[in-house]
């Protein structure tokens, strides 16, 4: 507990430092704190403070990720896609390009087919945590903000689904049956959606009858729901990440009377985000000698180019200027820790494959979390959507 307290305190301090002195997004401070904490394992040992067990940290990070995805799902309106179908084109373009060209470039760098395809798949996702945290910190409003959130929610869904399909492919290649190839992903996607819809219905009903007026109670109810869905999804071997993202979206959809419209998760969300960034840096473990810098940097470059190109290509058709489309693509740069979580799942099934992915991903994620956060901030400032906060 002492160690967790130290982590939280250090995160807040470095977050403030980042914001006030360096004029950078706070989350970079949280990441730095997490990295220090992770590297400081030996220091804790030296001070005879017992660090929290690794399993606890992993679980906390998993839960924080799930909460962030729920938050994002609730924040965006998928109904917009119906009113503006060019956004679907935009989303498919940037995601497909990222996947295919990411895959091709990694093959070109000499990676085997399977790790290259898996890396391509997890690169599709933009970091929901970074996008939520920075748009809230800068209190941005406008098309680039809204579209970044929506495209992020969509590309996270693709990344989870496609990487799961890839994994199923891996199962087939090594020891699986055809049934595992077809049924498992079907069960996963449909099962997650059904669980999400049921949970969302229950939540909206509870909120409508029981705690309509009390914001605090609303947030606690939501948190409780996230925890239950998280547990149930894991017990049913569904994707808890997909389930919670979908659950947030269903809550948004079912809440026709806009009861939860103004509910930002506020304090709860800030707390989870701090925890998330610090833990994601603190738990990143890798062997520095095996890092694949070359392929990683190629992937970074290709990924940004695909996102910018894909979104900008459909900018005018979807109702904004091309310039806004370009910045919108830049805003999608932050790479998600989701990628690392997915790689870890790969590692559980196949340790060698997992390690291969990690060696590329760690570099890409570090570069695209720090660089991506700065790129996103720049994009929101350049398009005039930030309110002139630091």
């Amino acid at each position: 507990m002492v160690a967790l307290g130290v982590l939280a305190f250090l995160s807040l301090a470095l977050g403030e430092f980042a914001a006030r002195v360096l004029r950078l997004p706070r989350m970079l401070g949280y990441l730095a704190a997490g990295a220090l904490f992770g590297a400081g394992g030996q220091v804790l040992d030296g001070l005879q403070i017992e660090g929290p067990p690794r399993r606890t940290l992993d679980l906390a990070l998993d839960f924080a990720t799930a909460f962030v995805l729920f938050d994002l799902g609730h924040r965006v309106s998928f109904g917009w896609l119906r009113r503006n179908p060019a956004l679907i084109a935009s989303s498919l373009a940037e995601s497909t390009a990222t996947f295919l060209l990411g895959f091709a470039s990694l093959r070109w760098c000499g990676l085997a087919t399977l790790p290259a395809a898996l890396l391509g798949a997890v690169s599709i996702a933009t970091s929901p945590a970074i996008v939520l945290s920075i748009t809230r910190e800068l209190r941005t409003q406008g098309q680039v903000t809204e579209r970044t959130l929506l495209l992020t929610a969509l590309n996270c869904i693709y990344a989870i689904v496609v990487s799961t399909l890839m994994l199923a492919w891996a199962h087939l290649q090594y020891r699986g049956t055809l049934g595992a190839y077809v049924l498992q992903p079907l069960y996963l996607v449909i099962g997650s959606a059904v669980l999400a819809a049921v949970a969302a219905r229950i939540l909206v009903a509870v909120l409508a009858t029981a705690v309509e007026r009390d914001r605090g109670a609303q947030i606690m109810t939501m948190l409780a729901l996230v925890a239950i869905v998280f547990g149930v999804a894991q017990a049913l071997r569904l994707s808890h990440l997909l389930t919670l993202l979908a659950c947030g979206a269903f809550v948004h959809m079912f809440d026709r009377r806009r009861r939860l419209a103004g509910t930002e998760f506020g304090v709860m969300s800030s707390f989870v985000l701090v925890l998330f960034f610090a833990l994601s840096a603190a738990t990143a473990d890798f062997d520095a000698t095996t890092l694949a810098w070359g392929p990683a940097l190629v992937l970074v470059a290709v990924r940004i180019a695909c996102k910018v190109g894909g979104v900008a290509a459909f900018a005018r058709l979807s109702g904004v200027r091309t310039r806004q489309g370009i910045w919108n693509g830049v805003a999608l740069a932050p790479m998600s820790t989701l990628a690392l979580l997915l790689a870890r799942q790969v590692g559980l099934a196949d340790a060698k494959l997992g390690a291969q992915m990690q060696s590329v991903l760690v570099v890409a994620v570090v570069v695209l979390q720090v660089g991506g956060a700065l790129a996103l901030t720049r994009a929101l400032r350049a398009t005039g959507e930030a309110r002139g906060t630091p």
Partner: protein
Amino acid sequence: MTESLEFKRSNALSMGVELELQVVDRRTGDLTRGAPDLIALLARKPVPGEVKPEITESMIEVSTSVHSAYGPLLQELQAIRSALTAAADTLDLHVGGGGTHPFQRWYERQIYDRPRFRHVAGLYGYLAKQFTVFGQHVHIGVEDGDRALKLLHALARYVPHFIALAACSPYYQGSDTAFDCSRLNTVFAFPLSGRAPFVTDWEGFERYFGKLRALGVVESMKDFYWDIRPKPEYGTIEVRVFDTPLTVDRAAQLAAYVQAICAFLADQRVFPQSEDIYLTYSYNRFQACRFGLEGQLIDPLAGSVVAVHQDVIATVERIRPYARALQSDAALDAIERIARGGGNHARWQRSVFQRTRSLAELVGESCEAWRRVDATDGIAKG
């Protein structure tokens, strides 16, 4: 920046409408900074009328071209409404009417980046951001400046009608103000608001304007925030006391009501002889803002008291022949229904809040009323 005050001749009783509209976030119902994107998108293809920015980035102003009859005016407003709705859908925004936004926080508004707006913000400080309120302006064409000023002062008597019929700002900054029209309280904070000086010839008005300009009080006619002001470059007088209604249908009806009253005044040569008509002006205006159609009107010359809705009904009767000639009978019927118990949009908004207990939902329903194409008589009877 000097401005010629030459009064441009225009066709008597021609009319045009300007509407200031809210740009709303679909998800939260709060105002949002969507105006620049909305205006950029609308600029791509020809849209009927004109779309312009307003003082903060959560407002846009649309205006019609000049019309002589109610029917075509309504049609153009409906076409503008359709274009706006389509653009707003593309950007996941709502556009809607209402004199105030029920729960926005004025200090969260951002001044639109234009020299004039920056100047206003610099001069008026927080008043500029509080000026995120939404009005309808009705222009009526007049042949010359003298007639314009006479008509302006003759119309002053009907200002409480206009306020009460259009009132649609009962909620402001998150609470019920008890006013039907709270928007005008925001306008009254400006030093050059209120009524125009009692000058009834254009030469006299030019002298008045010249003095104020020499004293450095004003630079152009734009600096006056009067309830009714002459607009010499258009050749019109501009009635500015209406809250933006929740539907374009009501906006057109209100314009037709003003037009018919003007036709009546011009024909009967009803022009005030003395400034005494203004003795009860502020009080009557307050009554209309606070109590809407139930407000009390004091006639300063006769000393009589009558409720606004009764005076509207009597006026409708008096101007009916002129409306018939102007082909705005249907509009006048609608005005009469409002006065005979149909109620203004402030009442409708209160009834929605009664039912839903949610201001966010009130905004949602108001925006849906704005886009509903089949609204013939404003919105459903509250």
